[in-house]
């Protein structure tokens, strides 16, 4: 179970919604009752709706950019929902579904993409770092944070999200080396969505990505990333290992980027439509829907409730985005340092004078 490099893929819920038995993983999701299942479903539907709304907002010129998570809902909700409040998340730019699980204020998700701020939220409010644009850099931060937890003697875990492309960066490899060396309580969660912009995963790795970690002395799992239960189980195994002092774990969640890299991207230049269709049938939400149906849980009432929730969130996001306050001109100088800097103070002062010269009619 713990060290996979044969390309095997853990799956607990088949694309058609059958529950697949797995002796090693089942116990980790046996508490997932009907209510929990329904709520996982709701979360996935809601984050997909957020994604659609954000894409629409971008098309309408209200956002500068949006990186869709379409297709990766199970990977993000399945893992995000297993985290404890005190755990700390270090993601890339695409983990808006995870941020949702962390209880982020909806509007905060949009600040970065509207161009109002570099960080949408205060990391300490939801124990999640802001989006990280430098590919892979956050994996080291997670490792360092985990070292801090270890030194503090608490069983808090750091988790880092990153893509398949990111695994080529030196930082990600160094993060594994540091984590292994100190047995840091960190989870490396790789969403292998098959693409790094236009580059297929095969360019980064000729063998399954999950096969790398064992070479660093880190156990790894390769799971169906479109299977919310498999993702949950794997994440719980990893969190449990970290909490109990047994060090890092690497999870490869095999999924697919159903949309463009970002709203600026044109995947028609490089994605084979047939490949996309193959993945369409593996949709993470559809299979839970089928499973719920097989359990007679997909009532009209339930579905209406989910839809209402999604609509409500979308509405709030839209309103929050449109009503977002513009940053103040002079705030460009704020928070460069935590204390004052003679040089920067002077520069700010001069620019403030400059701005005033217009008001005064220069």
């Amino acid at each position: 179970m713990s060290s996979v490099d044969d390309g095997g893929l853990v799956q607990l819920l088949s694309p058609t919604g059958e529950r697949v038995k797995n002796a090693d993983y089942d116990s980790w999701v046996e508490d997932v009752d009907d209510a929990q299942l329904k709520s996982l479903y709701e979360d996935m539907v809601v984050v997909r709706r957020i994604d659609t709304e954000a894409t629409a907002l971008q098309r309408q010129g209200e956002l500068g950019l949006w990186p869709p998570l379409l297709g990766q809902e199970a990977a993000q909700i399945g893992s995000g929902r297993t985290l404890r409040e005190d755990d700390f998340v270090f993601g890339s730019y695409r983990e808006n579904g995870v941020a949702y699980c962390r209880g982020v204020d909806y509007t905060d998700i949009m600040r970065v993409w509207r161009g109002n701020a570099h960080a949408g939220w205060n990391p300490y409010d939801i124990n999640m770092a802001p989006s990280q644009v430098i590919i892979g850099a956050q994996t080291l931060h997670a490792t360092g944070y985990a070292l801090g937890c270890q030194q503090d003697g608490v069983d808090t875990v750091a988790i880092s999200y990153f893509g398949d492309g990111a695994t080529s960066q030196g930082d990600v490899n160094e993060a594994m080396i540091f984590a292994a060396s100190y047995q840091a309580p960190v989870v490396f969660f790789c969403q292998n969505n098959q693409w790094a912009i236009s580059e297929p995963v095969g360019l980064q790795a000729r063998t399954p990505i999950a096969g790398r970690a064992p070479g660093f002395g880190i156990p790894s799992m390769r799971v169906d990333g479109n299977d919310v239960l498999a993702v949950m189980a794997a994440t719980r195994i990893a969190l449990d290992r970290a909490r109990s002092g047994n060090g890092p774990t690497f999870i490869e969640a095999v999924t697919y980027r159903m949309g463009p890299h970002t709203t600026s991207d044109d995947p028609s230049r490089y994605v084979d439509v047939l490949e996309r269709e193959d993945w369409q049938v593996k949709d993470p939400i559809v299979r839970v829907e089928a499973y719920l149906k097989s359990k007679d849980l997909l009532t009209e009432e339930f579905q209406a409730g989910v839809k209402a929730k999604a609509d409500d969130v979308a509405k709030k996001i839209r309103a929050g985005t449109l009503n977002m306050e513009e940053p103040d001109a002079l705030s460009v100088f704020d928070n460069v340092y935590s204390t004052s800097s003679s040089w920067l103070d002077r520069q700010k002062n001069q620019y403030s004078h400059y701005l005033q010269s217009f008001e005064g009619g220069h």
Partner: protein
Amino acid sequence: MSTMTLSRAINSGLRKALEDDPKVVLMGEDIGKLGGVFRVTDGLQKDFGAHRVMDTPLAEAGIIGTAVGLAYRGYRPVCEIQFDGFIYPGFDQIVTQVAKLHYRTGGAVKMPITIRVPFGGGIGAVEHHSESPEAYFTHTSGLRVVSCSNPQDAHTMVRQAIASDDPVLFFEPKRRYWTKGEVNEEITADTLSLESAAVVNSGNDVTLVSFGPLVATARDAAIAASDEGVSVEVIDLRSLSPIDFATIEASVRKTGRLVITHEAQQFGGLGAEIAASITQRCFYYLEAAPERVTGFDTPYPAAKLEDHFLPNLDRMLDAVDRVMGKDNSLSNWKGQ
């Protein structure tokens, strides 16, 4: 001669280089099928093959480091860094290897590597997509650093850069990629020195030094200034290291006043070197201290604030007023 955008002009320059020399290879993230996120390499992989236009794994140190090995083997790699802010993972290989190998080996090993970097702001992008890191490289001995401001230069200079036996950092003004202009593709790489600045507007009162994306703004500023009776000479540096000081010096000896503009942060930016060097060379000709119009000494801000950060026409004119001793924003400034 044909009309084309700046990005197309680079594309055509790369194409010529690939045609002219079988040792030229292009490397980078998404430069193949996609043609780069700015389409600068559009169509080149299709025409020259995946071995000459190589999509690389996502690792900048890897790109530069393997380019070093290719150069050792006699190749002339042209590396694309997708955006300015992503050059730092490759910084070590650039500074400790690319820049130093010719010196280290007493001239035995040449490093004819071109590193193309779309740089600068003004496109409303997220963090790390709008930076101007040129000063890190101009302070690094062993590198040549250039930046183009118009389609013709873009075309000629990228060919010169590739033809140069020295490593060249080639900074492309990304917000001017769509600027159109006439391009003569017959100009060959050896026609021009890679070190020469261009006087793009003649004037007598103030010398305004610019490069890359701000040359257009500087020219606009010169026009606006002339409306107010101030004659501004605009210089397009083109080469950022070394700098063609002779051209600036000649201009400042005439005007007696110098303004330098760049998007990069001011403290330790290229403007400091130009101000210091020109002060030394033209001390007795200067009527006023050189002024700098630059980005602020903050990280590049969120898109909604970038118009404040970026030098614009008004800030350039204000600096022109300062060196002219005219009424300006700091006339009544009491600060330290």
